[in-house]
């Protein structure tokens, strides 16, 4: 347990992640870090914005990020071969409409 945050701002700052749109928090942060790209201009911001839109649209229909899945498998389970992109897509498609796939009225 850490100290209780005093305000919203503290809460936001405590974990250090600015949580900007288009930045998947689990991805290797350097991949999205402007410093490693050497490009902080509007082009970078625009690209980040569109990758955020794409990710949002995909997650709206129940498909999480494949890159993130690969990163997870590489980090945690280097001994297991990850699913291919097509297998991953089908796996998530089935999961969305299985048990507990409630949708609202």
């Amino acid at each position, binding site marked *: *347990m*850490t100290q*209780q*945050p005093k*305000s*919203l701002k503290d*809460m*936001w700052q*405590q*974990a250090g*992640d600015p*949580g*900007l*749109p*288009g*930045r*998947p*928090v*689990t991805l290797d942060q350097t991949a999205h870090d402007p410093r490693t790209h050497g490009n902080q201009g509007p082009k970078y911001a625009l690209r980040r914005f569109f990758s*955020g839109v*794409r*990710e*949002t*649209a*995909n*997650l*709206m*229909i*129940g*498909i*999480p*990020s494949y890159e*993130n*899945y*690969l*990163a*997870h*498998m590489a980090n*945690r*389970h280097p001994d297991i071969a990850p699913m291919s*992109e*097509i297998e*991953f*897509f*089908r*796996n*998530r*498609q*089935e*999961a*969305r*409409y*299985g*048990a*507990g*796939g*409630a*949708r*609202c*009225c």
Partner: protein
Amino acid sequence: MLGKIGWALAAIIAAAALAVIATQRGEPVNALWIVVAAVSLYLIGYRFYALYIAKHVMRLDPALPTPAVRRADGLDYVPTNRYVLFGHHFAAIAGAGPLVGPVLAAQMGYLPGTLWILFGVVLAGAVQDFMVLFLSMRRDGKSLGELVRMEMGAVAGTIALFGAFMIMVIILAVLALIVVRALADSPWGMFTVAATIPIAIFMGLYLRYIRPGRVAEISIIGFVLLMLAIVFGRNIAESPVFGPMFTFTPVQLCWLLIGYGGIAAILPVWLLLAPRDYLSTFLKIGAIVALAIGIVVMAPQLQMPALTKFADGGGPVWSGNLFPFLFITIACGAVSGFHALISSGTTPKLIANERDVPFIGYGGMLMESFVAIMALVGASILDPGLYFAMNSPSALIGTTPESAAAAVTAMGFPVTPEYLAQVAKDVGEASVISRTGGAPTLAVAMAEIFSHVIGGSAMKAFWYHFAILFEALFILTAVDAGTRAGRFMLQDLIGLVSPQFRNASSLVPGFIATALCVSAWGYFLYQGVTDPLGGVNTLWPLFGIANQMLAAVALVLATVVLFRMKRHRFAWVTILPATWLVICTVTAGLQKVLSSDPAVSFVAHARKFSAALEQGQVLAPAKNLAEMQRIITNDWIDAGLCILFLGVVISMVIFGIRSIISAYRIPEPTAIEIRGVPAE
């Protein structure tokens, strides 16, 4: 300091805008006042109430790993950026409910609905979504049923699961009924909606075999095909050969939908359900954004009075008084019990950090409420005469422009038959009389708004059918996905008695559960379609009661957990809305059973018809003795359902109070949170 001035300013703006919409009489009010009041109230509610709950009631801890972090698997448990997750959560909670409820509520004028949508969401609806999301996140993303079982015991868990299944049945029936009312005798609408089936199957095959996983490109292709279907729908409707092929009576449509629901729910998901879900999700989000922009650009005047004379009850659209029935009717836009199922579904497994919970849980529901506000604005910018002509049952106003204009003018909302005929012509329909269910009304309003921005009156018919398609598309997706979800719930429930029924992969239990689920909602759909009062009159209040009841159950659960966490000092946050919802649902349920007014009570209605039947009389709207008998049977079944819902909510309250008392007596916290070790 600047921040404080800003918030004080927001409060003043909210108060001023509310004062304008509440006190302006005679002069039409601009819809933007409602939008401004809503946005500033949401901001204040979020900044002060949501963060108060986050800080003091839940004590969210950014350092505590969430299930997405502890159990990360790249599939179900994925720490997700908060904006991306907000989109996911909002897309899952937004549906037809917040669009239809406020349109129906407009019969009392725009003011009561606006006030309940705004204050209801801040104090009740958003709190419920937020609390359930928090509870589920602290318990590995478990579902509502499992949460109730964990914190309140197995019996309470089973009752909650059963309640959720019954709600599903009523939701599916009422949603399907809205589609039937919107597409009956409308070959243009029917053609475009029917066209979504081959388009979706084409998309499904493309995604499966041609270019797997390329959702973006095929969705764009699908969207273009849909727009073509709307454009050419007019030619189909006007063609002497094809027009009649796509013209169906409500009863025919009812059987088509039941057959469709049964088949669609057992087809592989990739073929029809998934691709249509993609189309409908993107179209839904796009149409909601476009509607918001359209309202701001057009800045329409509200034609509906702030309060109509039906605020005292006796309205043609739905029966009953403001209390409790307004709160039942608005449903999803202010409080939606169904969100408890979503907030304990996929969303809690995707939260990257606890501090994201207010934004997603509370903020997501504020957005849903804004959709409801837009729907209410839509219904209120129409001529009130047109609104009542579209939403009153044909048993009251007849089916011709002349009879409808005369009847609605007699209600006190003057309108001419020429105007009603002209509106129908503008939107490319044979008639707009008695198009109940809310969807067509909203479609006329959206056509009004969109054609003001793009295309002028020449485009009205296109925009009307676009709006109908947008609503029908996601309703059909909900019917399909809901039948599947209902099937699994049913398998779970029957599995309590005979465990082999639970096997999700075995075919026979799946078929039986699907058939049972389709027949359950199909029965209520058929009853609604053949109901001479239009069916919405009967089914929507049942849906509202069920939905608000589930919200009450979720809030009781949240209260129990607060007591078990020894945070009872703050339990008023959930006790307040839970009490209000229990009062509303129990009063409404009792009135539906016990009231002496046959327009409100199923039992009084059944008695009235039974008495006539004994005399051998046939009461309108029945045409013969067999129909009399059917009306009586339906009444008793609906009354039984009400009693069942009352039983669920009252037993959950009793279980809740028992759990609260025993938790209060134990000096240390008893809530069961799962913090555990990281998986693997």
